[in-house]
């Protein structure tokens, strides 16, 4: 098992390194395809390889035409398998943090909450990989207020680090009757204003925490991006009068997420490659928006 894991990790890294070459090949094929379609002469640099490449083009189907990146590899099996999430906290959590994690375990379908105890992170990751979990979510706090969220995708997947702000938990709403119980249907997802590449990547990381929903569910989970602060909202809707009358009822916790790092490895890999990290001390960082628009 150990050796298998090591071998698979090496394969993953190797395929990541091949991406450059594959992209080159893809570009060449694309150029030839265009030239053929438009009836233009093939660009001169491709003349030698043109015959071989053209045969390959003919043999391609839609799966093989687009080069696969390591990102696709990370999330290759998501469509076939439902995600399985493990939720846990930092060490020695306070009572409000435990309540918050309990709420989160209801938000993500097929999520399991675990007490942290004295476990080391690498142990947790190993056991999750062995038990076929797809994601691990860690929640950190500051004096009772949750302030950090780490989403780690499991087979050596990417890890996203978020900061939490403006957290309002269900426990703070004292009136239990008003808020009712939390439905457990698989929710629809809304991602608003994730227009850059980094935004797409973040949206994917958050999206694959959820399984494929039924088309007629009434539960909506929203991630709305406004100048790099992502608002999380959780609603149930009802259509009363037929056309265009939709009533939203907010359930579930509400918080703002602020992405500050994405690493191409799991949480326990301290030396993993950093895909993106926030740079707040740059003079232009006030003007730039990274997640979209």
């Amino acid at each position, binding site marked *: 098992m150990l050796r298998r894991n090591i071998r698979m990790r090496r394969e993953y890294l190797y395929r990541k390194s091949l991406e450059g070459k594959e992209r080159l090949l893809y570009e060449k094929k694309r150029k030839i395809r265009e030239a053929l379609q438009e009836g233009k002469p093939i660009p001169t640099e491709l003349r030698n390889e043109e015959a071989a490449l053209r045969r390959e083009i003919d043999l391609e189907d839609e799966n093989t035409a687009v080069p696969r990146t390591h990102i696709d590899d990370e999330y290759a099996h998501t*469509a076939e398998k439902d995600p399985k999430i493990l939720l846990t906290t930092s060490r020695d959590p306070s009572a409000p943090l435990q309540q918050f994690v309990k709420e989160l375990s209801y938000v993500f379908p097929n999520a399991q909450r675990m007490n942290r105890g004295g476990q080391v992170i690498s142990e947790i990751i190993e056991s999750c990989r062995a038990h076929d979990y797809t994601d691990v979510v860690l929640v950190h706090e500051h004096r009772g207020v949750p302030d950090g969220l780490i989403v780690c995708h499991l087979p050596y997947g990417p890890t996203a680090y978020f900061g939490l702000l403006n957290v309002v938990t269900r426990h703070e709403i004292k009136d239990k009757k008003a808020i009712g119980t939390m439905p457990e249907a698989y929710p629809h997802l*809304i991602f608003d204003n994730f227009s850059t590449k980094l935004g797409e990547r973040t949206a994917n990381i958050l*999206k*694959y925490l959820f399984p494929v929903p039924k088309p007629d569910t009434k539960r*909506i989970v929203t991630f709305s991006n406004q100048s790099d602060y992502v608002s999380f909202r959780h*609603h149930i809707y009802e259509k009363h009068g037929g056309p265009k009358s939709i009533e939203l009822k907010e359930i579930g916790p509400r918080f703002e997420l602020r992405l500050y790092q994405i690493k191409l490895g799991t949480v326990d890999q301290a030396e993993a490659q950093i895909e993106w990290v926030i740079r707040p001390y740059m003079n232009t960082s006030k003007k730039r928006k990274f997640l979209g628009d």
Partner: protein
Amino acid sequence: MADSKDAGEEALRRLIATFQPSFLAPNPALSETSRAASRHLFSALRPFCPKSPLDQLLIDGFDAEQIWQQIDLQSQPLLSSLRRQVKHFAKNPEEISKLKVVPLGKKVEKEQREDWVEESDGFDEELEDDEEGEGKGGEEGMDIEDEDEEQGRESDNEEESEGEDEEEKGEDGEAGDGGIEDKFLKIDELAKYLEKEEENFEKAEEDTRGKKGADDEENTEDDDDDDEEEEEEEEESDEVSVLLGMLSLDLAAKMQQGTWKMQGMDLFYGVFLTLEHCGWDEQFILLLRYEDFFGDKGKYSKKMKAQLHQESEGSDEEDDDMKFKKQNKGTASTHQKQLEKIHSKIEEMEKANLEPKTWTMQGEVTAAKRPKNSALEVDLDFEHNVRPAPVITEEVTASIEDMIKKRITEGNFNDVQKAPKLPSKVPREVKELDDNKSKKGLAEIYEQEYVEKEDPTSAPLSFRDEQKQQASVLFKKLGLKLDALAHFSFAPKPVIEDMSVQINVPALAMEEIAPVAVSDAAMLAPEEVFEGKGDIKEETELTKEERKRRRANKKRRFKAAAVKRMGKKVQEGALPNQMNG
């Protein structure tokens, strides 16, 4: 006119008489009095301001700010004209003597007055910041200041002492519309005094050449324009204020001698109070002259200088400047004046560089290294390069919910999509019937089938589709590589049981050259031909017993066979047995 004047003076007097601390609390009566007093002074000064738009200070219904602004309106042009005058006198000191000669010239008087007024202006500006600037709108405070100041200066311009503080922010009442000379001020005395002062100064210069020079200029009366100016130039562009600063220092020194630890304004105030306390009449106090305080001019200047020495910082440049100015008193051109200014600035900056910097300029400063609560006074402004966290207001929530509703009505969600399933069955190949005559003969077809049956791998590629052919070629290559992975150790071919007739033909027959329709494979194997059992031995290999046994077996068999023959013969009939015997 006289009536109002009197009223004004009365107001002034009352102001002076009030107990100082009562100014700290808002008092409408006091405010009224001070307003009246300022109006009086304003109108007294009005004749000297050619361009003043206001004839009278408007106080009804105006608040402190507005009154100040009116005063400013009058005083600013006045100040500049006074300065011009003073500068002019600085350049041409001989004109001052000329002034003295002309008696009762209103203009002269005015000039002199204006000098003092100017000085007091500067003094006011200087002191304002220090003391009673705060509290009730400086008016009353200013009045007091000026009062005290006057005493301090003992100017002989108190011809009508009584609160004629000609120095009230410049709008000071020129109460003196009488002759410039009165029982206090005599022009001759003025001239003598000036000369005396100059001598003293030069003496002092020699005395204190070694030490950092003090300026007995400070001691001199404001009458000495030149000196004042020189001092002024040292310190600030506002020449007059410097002198007055010096004067206050003077008084400070004096008071310190007498263990009065106050400074500046406080001293005057203190002096005033004590004197009053001692029973002096107001008017008397105001009539005090400089000389009463600083008795013998000559002696005193030196003492004062020595004291000021200790107090004043950086009187170096002052000294140098003084000397320099003294030398070029007659030829101080604009350029030289500029040079002097620059020099003084340079010296200031050099001095500042030598001292340790203020804590705000010192890089990383912990709380221990700066004075207590000093961070509260500094205007700390940091540029935050991070957009602050959004405050979640009603509008924000409403906008998010609107967006959600819109998405719901459209049905536009970003859900995870199920992957398209790979086809589970190979798509059936549609065979096309080819109704051309087959090119191969029947025999060839049979041959091919036979060969395929025997050895599947050697079958020629008979694919209709070019692509299939290419695919199969590729697959063969792949298959070879995979076999190489398994080191070419295949699993054995499965045996197919097949029933066929085996002919027992002698081997010799097989070796005939003539074509036969039967192959070797169809022959019976020797073990199938063999009849017998056990171990076969030749006759030569037999042992004796075995020979005997075989013979015995043979005999027995022969006999058994013979009996059977006999039986048969008997059965057949009579046999000619007579023949035998």
